[in-house]
């Protein structure tokens, strides 16, 4: 069980800022595939992974990172601070 967060246009495409996932995907990529299989809005958000960044438990991470023990995963576009 983990929280999945979305920011910026990822949030807008998926339509919610946050949701709880009851399955236990092994990696970020497994989580992405689980989500993509759900509905078109997820497919639209995740169609180009090179345009996305991911954080696991609030640390920047990679799509092949393990989710063992992870409590929070966030997807968002490249950051534009400053």
């Amino acid at each position, binding site marked *: 069980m983990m929280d999945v967060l979305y920011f910026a246009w990822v949030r807008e495409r998926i339509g919610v800022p946050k949701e709880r996932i009851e399955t236990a995907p092994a990696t970020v990529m497994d989580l992405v595939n689980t989500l993509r299989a759900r509905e078109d809005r997820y497919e639209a958000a995740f169609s180009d992974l090179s345009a996305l960044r991911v954080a696991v438990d609030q640390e920047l991470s990679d799509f092949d990172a393990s989710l063992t023990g992870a409590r929070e995963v966030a997807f968002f576009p490249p*950051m534009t601070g400053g």
Partner: protein
Amino acid sequence: MDIRVQEAAFDLGTEANGFVARQSRMGAVVTFTGIVRDLDDTKLRAMQIEHYPGMTQKALEKIAQEARDRWNLGDVLIIHRYGKLTPDEVIMMVATAARHRADAFQAAEFLMDFLKSRAPFWKKEVTEAGADWVAARDADEDALTRW
């Protein structure tokens, strides 16, 4: 380290003076200030800044600590706003203090380069034509390779 992520406006002059006053033995202070501007003549009405509340403070602290490990610094200040800003408002500032200017300049540039691409902020510009997320610039990602 003084790192603040806030919705409220802040005053650059007050912060710069306060930062200088809190240092001792540091002869050089560099500040960078980012301001909402209508750079491309799009009749910018507002800039909406979204962030990742749980992560932002930690990400900025990590970047600031990295700067302190790399250069001989006094203190580091980062203030970054989120929420709705209008043209000419100050978005954010960093300040660095050092004995000599090279350290202060390099640390400030380093903070800005990492803050641009590694701190979880996203900007949306609201113009006459609609609202659009600001795209990350390749130049900003490239800027990281020099450190």
